[in-house]
Each structure stands twice: as C-alpha cells, then as structure tokens.
C-alpha cells in the first residue's frame, strides 16, 4: 500500500535562529493510505504544527513532506487535496450551513443545483438534514463539529486532518461522535489524521498512533504496542498512567536493571506479593479504586476492582502482578 503522508526528518522551528522554538523537530513518519492515524501528546508537543505542515499552512524549516509520493514543498494549501476539520471549526458565520458545506465545491466552480445536492447528501451523512438553512451561530457545539466534518468531506479529500475535533464536547456526545467518526472513516476509506491529547480517544480509535513529546515522536505503533510495550518512561506514563519502575526495582522483581512499566490493572492485592509498602492514597474511580503504595522511594499504583476489599490509608499492604505484566523498556 502507498503511503498517504510521509515526513522525512521534518522540522519546523519558530523564532530566532539562535534560540529557536522547536515546535516540530526531526520527525520521521509514514501514514498508510486508508489508515486512521492518531497523533497523541501533551499540550505544546507539536501536534497542530504537524497537521499544519500537512495542510500547507506551515512550511518545514528543513526536511521533506510527501503526500501520496509527491513532494509538496512548492504546493500551496488550496492545491492540496487535503482537508481540515479545525480545532475551532472555523465555520463561515455569514453563510448558512448548506453554503458552508458547499463552499469547497463553489470555489471549484460547480453549479448551484449540483453543489447544493451534494451538500445535502453530506448533511444527511452527518445526520443534519434539517439544518441546511441555519446559520452556524444557531447550532450546538456537536452540530457545528459535524458541519465542519461535512464541509471537509464534501470535497472527497485524499487525507482528512482533524485537530482535536471532539475537544469541546461533553463526554457522552464525545463517545457517540468517536463511534460515528470511526464508522465513517471505515465506510469512506479516507485516510484520517486525528490529533488529540486524550489517550483513551487515541487508543480506541486509531489503527496506528504516534506519541509526541517536545516536537519529537516518542513512539509510533499500533495502540496495542503503545499501550503494552511503551518504549520510554514518557510513553508509559502518558498513555494509561502506568507505573514506571526504576532499574533497581525492576531487578528486584526479577528483571534486568532497566526502567520498566507495570499497568495498575494487571496488579492485584496479595499478602505475599513481591511489591510491599504503605498505602498512601486511595482514589475511587467508579469501576474500581486506585490504591497507591509507597515502596521505598517509588509510588506504585494498583487498580482494585469495585467489590474487592480495599486496604486503609496508612496500613501495610502488598501487590502481586500477573506473569508477563512487567514490561522492560528499551529507551530511557
């Protein structure tokens, strides 16, 4: 399969050359055609900048970007068959919803009847059939988000870029939209590049995901790989709030003297467990309770399912873990 988007050592620096802000720093990346690709990372890690490099609103300071094999260094945004769902949706306030959706077809010279027909098809795809005559100001956040999606999809882009499109929605609507987006992507077969700082969203939606940190890619792989085999401490900590064990502790637990990760949900309370210490914090999460144990210098958390007995703060306790749950990390 061809690659939809390729980054070859791409950097984007801002500010003075002497002390640049390295928004994106030496990123290598291949996004397969038809994939649902997620970019995950904390605020300021360069996700938006990466999307803007693909859409053409930023130009790389160095490196090369290819879209379906073609170098796009000389291609302005309006000639890239790539569309964006903006973080703030950026709907045109002076046009009604139908005109917003038909905009891309209008500027390409399609006649009124034809483009309105296509716009209405798109609106029914995102379940907004009745809303064509409204102004964007008269829509809820979730509806606006769907208009933005329809406006991008009507152009039949080869790649769709989504910048935290669900950030402004409440949890319930967000989960519904996640499922809708995922189903839509499968149906249309368009390559989606999806930016989020929500790890659950990234893990549940993506075929493949890149974890960003400080403008660099910390790890790239399938959600399973990222979750079960984090390469660095940062990834282990950021994706799924894992326990990060220092080398001495890993060695004590029978591993090599390297940093390791241990998922809270693969641990259970056991009086004879190898990890013993004092309970310092309890956090009730609904489906379970997160029990934090102070072990020497480190904090180790375990998830105790609701119903099972929970130790008291200050008492001595011990954890055991399932065989194979200890993951030794290659990187720092």
């Amino acid at each position, binding site marked *: 399969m061809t690659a939809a988007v390729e980054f070859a050592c791409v950097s984007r620096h801002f500010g003075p050359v002497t002390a640049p802000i390295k928004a994106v720093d030496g990123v290598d990346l291949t996004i397969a055609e038809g994939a649902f690709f997620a970019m995950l990372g904390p605020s300021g890690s360069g996700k938006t900048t990466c999307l803007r490099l693909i859409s053409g609103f930023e130009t790389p300071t160095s490196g090369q970007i290819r879209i379906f094999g073609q170098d796009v260094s000389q291609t302005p945004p309006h000639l890239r068959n790539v569309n964006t769902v903006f973080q703030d949706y950026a709907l*045109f306030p002076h046009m009604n919803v139908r005109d917003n959706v038909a905009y891309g077809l209008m*500027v390409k010279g399609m006649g009124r009847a034809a483009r309105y027909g296509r716009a209405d098809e798109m609106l029914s795809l995102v379940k907004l059939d009745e809303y064509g005559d409204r102004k964007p100001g008269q829509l809820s956040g979730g509806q606006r988000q769907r208009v933005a999606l329809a406006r991008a999809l009507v152009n039949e882009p080869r790649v769709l870029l989504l910048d935290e499109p669900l950030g402004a929605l409440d949890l319930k609507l967000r989960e519904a939209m996640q499922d809708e987006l995922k189903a839509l992507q499968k149906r249309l077969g368009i390559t989606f590049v999806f930016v989020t700082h929500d790890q659950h969203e990234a893990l549940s939606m993506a075929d493949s995901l890149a974890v960003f940190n400080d403008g660099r890619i910390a790890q790239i792989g399938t959600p399973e790989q990222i979750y079960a085999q984090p390469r660095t401490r940062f990834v282990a900590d950021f994706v799924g709030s894992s326990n990060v064990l220092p080398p001495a502790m890993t060695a004590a637990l029978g591993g090599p003297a390297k940093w390791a990760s241990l998922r809270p949900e693969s641990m259970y309370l056991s009086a004879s467990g190898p990890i013993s210490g004092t309970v310092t914090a309890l956090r009730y999460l609904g489906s379970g309770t997160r029990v934090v144990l102070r072990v020497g210098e480190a904090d180790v958390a375990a998830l105790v399912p609701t119903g099972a007995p929970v130790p008291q703060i200050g008492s001595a306790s011990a954890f055991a873990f399932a065989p194979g749950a200890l993951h030794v990390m290659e990187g720092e």
Partner: protein
Amino acid sequence: MTVPAIFAARGSADRLTGLFWRRPRLLLVLLLTPPLLWLGVVYLGSLATLLLQSFYSIDEFSGVVVPEFTLKTYAELLRPANFDVILRTVVMSAAVTLGCAVLSFPIAYFAARYAKGRWKAVFYLGVMLPLWSSYLVKVYAWKLILAKEGIITWAASATHTTAALDALLALPVIGGNSLSTSYLGMFAVFVYVWIPYMILPMQAALERVPTSMIEASADLGATRAQTFRTVILPLALPGVVAGSIFTFSLTMGDYIIPQIVGNSANFIGMAVYQLQGTAGNIPLAAAFAVVPIVIMLIYLGLAKRMGAFDAL
C-alpha cells in the same frame, strides 16, 4: 477570633455598591441620564427644529420666513441650479468614498493581519498624526502643492512627465486649468483629509476576521481572490460600511474644501453656508441640510439589503 462570614459595610462606597447591586437599573439610569439628556434635547431637538424649518418657506418679497407647513421649499431643491449642487455633491462624495476604500484596504489589511508591536504603533501614528494638525492648514498646504507653480507641476517637469499631467488636466469635467482648480484636485484633498476615518474602522473589522477562517477557505480550495471575495470582504463589510458612512457624510457636509480647492462650483455644504448667512433663506438651507440625511438613510437601507450587517 473567627473571621466573619459577612463583612460590615465600611463606608458610603460599600453602601452605594450594595444599593447598585440590589437595584441594578439605578446605576444604568444614573449613568445614562446626562448623555441621553444631551443627545435627546440638544442633539435630536435641534435636528427636529431643522426638519421643521425645512417645511417652512420664505416670502419672496419681504424675505421673511413664513412658519406654515409647505413643500414649496423642497420643490425648490429640484430646480436645475439646486439639483446640480446636490448631484455634484453626491457624485463627489461617492467618488471620495470609493477612493478612500480602495486606498485604505491594503493599509488596513496589512495593519490588521501582519503588523505587530512596533509596526502597529507606526501604523496608528501614521494614520492619526495628520489628524492632529489643523484641517485648514492641511487644506491650504494642499492648495500650494496642487497649484500651477506647485510641487506637483515642478515634479512633473523634473521627471519629464509634464505631458501626462497635461493630459490628465485636459480631461473633460474633472480636469481644469491646474490641479488646484479642478475636481481632480478637490478629490485628492478630500481623500487625504478623510482617509483616516476609513482606515480605522476597516482595520478594526479586518482584525476581527479570524485567521482560521481565511485558512479554512484556502483549505477548501479557494484562491486568494476567492477568499477575498467570499470570506474577507463579507466579514469586513460592516467596517467598510462604517468607514464609508464617515467619508460619505463628511464629504457631503464639507463647505471649506470646495471653497479653497476646485473651480468654485457649489456644493451642499457651501449652499447651506450661503443660504443661512448672506441670503438669509433658512428654510432652503434646512432643506439642503436634510438631503445628506436622507441620502445616508437610503444608503444604509441599501447596505442592509445587500447583507452588509449580516456578520454583525
């Protein structure tokens, strides 16, 4: 000692704040009364008197105002000599507005989208500085610049472009003996003195167009020209209309520039000035003064119809 849950009022300021909190309308009324008195009585009152005067007429023999309702004075406006004055003023105001809009747009666009920090200060200074010097000084300075022996004639001869200048002055109607005695010169001076009133609202409107809107347009495949026509202009139109109201009405009401620059053809402002002064024909002066108001109302109605305020 325990901290009180409710503090005692410390003085009149606390009591007043409390009063305003309990009666929010009171503060509003107190704040609005003086300006509303001014606006309502002094401003709208005199406007109403003006309107009233325009429906009176003057006795042709005695020259005394007859305070009886009549449309005679308005009919007089339609006499060719008077109608020419109106037409000339409206055409000049429209031309000045258009000239200001075309010249302002690039400046306002630069200031709104690109100028940062120091350049923004330079922009504001550059636009406002001319407003700080006397209007009369500027107009007389322009008269000298445009005069037959002025800088422009000199510059034309120095650059061997006298022929072009002569060709310009040879144009029918707008040309003339020299720039300072032609409509062209008057147009230039009008544009110069009123352009800040176009640039500033335009810049404010353009600044309110989010960058992401312009990027969304390009993202959807629009060229720069299409983005300008379908996104930037409609969103900035309220600002352009606001600016055009200034330039249009300021030009329509001006009575000094047409006296100093140009071929001494009559304009509405001059007509009002002469009619209420030497001629003592207050009703006709009032009727003339109503014309710009009516034209502005028509203009605003058209702008609204065209959707200029949809993005407000």
